[in-house]
């Protein structure tokens, strides 16, 4: 299986988180035996690691061949740019009128047509003033590469590459998957750039499938862009904390730290040790809140215990979190995750916490502590030690950060291979099921 992938940035040249994600995704796919032909605006000498199935091509390396020229002719003469422009002729066009866009598009085409040979397009691959023009040129590259047809499926990341993805789909007829890492609403709040929204909506409509990097993002795609939820699959990215909060629209009191227990409230998970440790910590620190998320047969006893310790103005019970969005929110809000399990064969929630950049304290009795060597570990029954570990990590942000980074490193490969596997499955369904 081969993917034609349109990216915008790639390590070591990074402007945002997109490059890191793109790197992880290509690695994950490659490790799952998917060939990746990754297109970037400019290669800038990036060479993929050896022994991978990744090929990298810069858009600025593509030379003006007769083939390309005739394709451009067709675009110009037969379609007069209207197809490319269709999103801007829709009622959503707010900031620039359709006419302005059309003339800008014509300028780009004239610039291209004026060249006879050599590199056809100059790309900076940055986020400069002429970004929109670059996005259009990139779209033309997409159309051209689509004509080559040496791939099975197309994948594009965010609005910058959407036009390229659509172009490739149009000329090749191959299915298009768009991965949304952030929407215009994430970037700009309610003061959105209408043109960018149009491109996003156009892409989401044209795509055969959409990958959202969180349930929150999926919700935005469905609500703000009016997309059928069945078309959207969630595959998580590992994202940094600040970005996560911003992305989920969480406003947090900065003076306060949240310590999370998430899981069934049953004997096996050790929630009672969590409460006792919380009580000790609250005697020492005033700016901490403890959250017990989940439900189970120990709930009544623990609620009464917390009440009799008189810590319920700092210790909160959420009950069972009945949707993924709440779980996501809970992790993103937290500054520390505690898993005091008495007995835990594995403990996937510890992985999830790391994914959300949350430092973790594990009981030595959990299976996952074997893999996460960098995590802080205590015996579940050692409440004073658990309490001092919590205080330590809350008070020493540097230590907490180091811990998360080291866990993340340990997890990175596991995570991206996992994501790659999910994407491969998605492509597989697209290509071989009758559904599409």
């Amino acid at each position, binding site marked *: 299986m081969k993917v034609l992938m349109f990216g915008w940035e790639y390590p070591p040249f990074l402007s945002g988180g997109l490059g890191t994600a793109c790197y992880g995704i290509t690695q994950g796919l490659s490790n799952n035996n998917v060939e990746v032909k990754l297109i970037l605006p400019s290669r800038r000498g990036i060479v993929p690691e050896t022994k991978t199935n990744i090929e990298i091509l810069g858009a600025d390396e593509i030379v003006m061949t007769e083939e390309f020229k005739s394709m451009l002719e067709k675009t110009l003469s037969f379609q007069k740019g209207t197809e490319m422009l269709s999103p801007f002729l829709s009622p959503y066009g707010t900031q620039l009128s359709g006419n302005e866009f059309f003339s800008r598009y014509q300028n780009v085409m004239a610039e291209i047509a004026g060249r006879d040979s050599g590199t056809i397009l100059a790309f900076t691959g940055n986020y400069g003033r002429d970004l929109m023009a670059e996005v259009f040129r990139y779209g033309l590259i997409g159309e051209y590469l689509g004509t080559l047809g040496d791939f099975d499926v197309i994948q594009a990341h965010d609005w910058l590459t959407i036009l390229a993805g659509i172009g490739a789909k149009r000329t090749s007829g191959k299915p298009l998957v768009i991965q949304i890492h952030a929407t215009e609403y994430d970037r700009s709040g309610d003061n959105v750039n209408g043109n960018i929204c149009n491109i996003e909506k156009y892409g989401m409509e044209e795509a055969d499938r959409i990958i959202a990097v969180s349930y929150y993002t999926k919700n935005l795609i469905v609500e703000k862009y009016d997309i059928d939820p069945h078309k959207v699959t969630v595959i998580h990215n590992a994202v940094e904390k600040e970005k996560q909060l911003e992305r989920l629209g969480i406003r947090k*009191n900065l003076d306060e730290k949240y310590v999370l227990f998430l899981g069934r409230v049953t004997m096996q998970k050790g929630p009672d040790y969590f409460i006792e440790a919380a009580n000790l910590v609250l005697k020492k620190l005033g700016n901490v809140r403890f*959250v017990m998320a989940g439900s189970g047969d120990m*709930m*009544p006893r623990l*609620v*009464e*215990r917390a*009440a*009799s310790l*008189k810590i*319920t*103005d700092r210790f*909160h*019970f*959420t*009950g069972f979190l009945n949707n993924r969005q*709440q779980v996501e*929110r809970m992790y993103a809000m937290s500054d520390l995750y505690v898993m005091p399990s008495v007995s835990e064969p594995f403990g996937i929630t510890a992985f999830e916490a790391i994914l959300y950049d949350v430092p973790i304290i594990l009981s030595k009795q959990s299976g996952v502590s074997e893999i996460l060597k960098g995590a802080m570990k205590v015996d579940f029954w050692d409440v004073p030690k658990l309490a001092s570990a919590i205080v330590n990590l809350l008070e020493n942000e540097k230590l907490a950060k180091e811990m998360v980074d080291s866990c993340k490193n340990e997890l990175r490969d596991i995570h991206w291979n996992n994501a790659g596997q999910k994407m491969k499955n998605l492509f597989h369904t697209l290509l071989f099921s009758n559904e599409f």
Partner: protein
Amino acid sequence: MVSVCFYFQVHQPFRLRKNYSFFDIGANHFYEDEDANRDICNKVSAKCYIPMNRLLLELVDRFQGRFKVAFSISGIALEQLQRFNPEVVDLFKQLAATGAVEFINETYYHSLAFLFSHADFKKQVHEHKKLIKEMFGQTPTTFRNTELIYNNELARYVEELGYTTILAEGADHVLGWRSPNFVYQPKDCYKLVLLLKNYKLSDDIAFRFSNRGWKEFPLTADKYATWLHAINGNGEIINLFMDYETFGEHQWQDTGIFNFMRALPEKVLAHPDYQFINPREAHLHYTPVAKIDVPHFVSWADIERDLTAWLGNPMQNSASEMVWRLEKDLIKLGDENLLSVWHKLLTSDHYYYMCTKWFSDGDVHKYFNPYDTPFDAYIVFMNVFNDLKETVKQRLKEKRVRTVKSKKA
């Protein structure tokens, strides 16, 4: 003469939104379950308040004022009725205008304030007094504390506030060998008279009326009047205190409760030595026969007749302790809106919902409890409390900043 003294309690709490969750803290300051509150007021008005008020108007009219009853309506119940069922309030006003219906004073928020802050207790009593005056044109002289919670200290305090009658539960451990059917005086009081509920005769109507397993079933007005008449010669006053919702809500219309009440006054008054009186008149007719010493709190709840329906388990204790700890800051802020929000969290029902005494048996507590478990009740209450607490903290901070700025200016 033997007097029959009816007093009916009307109360509806502001119920909290059961889905007010941890995620709402700091984000959502709207705590009340407006839908549930409206639905319940509508339901109870249709089943009880409207038909029973009409019946009482009819009876007062028929007996030319010789049939009398008294009401205590909590301030927050009146607030909700005004908002959702103004027709009910009109009927209460008509009852007040007859002169045969007394309106008793209580804490506006149906709270346990006397146990925590005398200053705030006094404030709530005054607020309620003002409301009664405005709505019904009466200046109350009878006081009853939330859920008939009572002790010597309360009686003393209430006497100082100028009241002449106070109501309490005729609990066995209070009365000992004595009968509830006389007028008493609280231990340290000199003017205030104490009326004690005859719980047996009250509960015959309130709890047993429709109980088919009861050997006296079915209870007729004739039979009940005979029981009342049997007291002649060994008692002076029969205090029948009960929830007003008994009529039509707890005992449904098809049990015959309305017909029972329609027939009762005539049967009672058939005896020449019997009359109906209001609690405020008790001291005019009778001299207290003895002083009663109640050092510990009694109430009309459960078998224990103590405070354990609202206070005692760790949830109830921590919730009330934390809520009352906000009092000082709220006074400092002086924001009437926030004070009223806080006051609504003092309503006894919230703590009643957290009671675990009867949780396993599931009975009367469960009947009145909108939550599945007392733990759910506690969690929701604490979420709301924590939001209010954060709001207060925030506002205090803003106020300090303002004060510093204005001092600089």
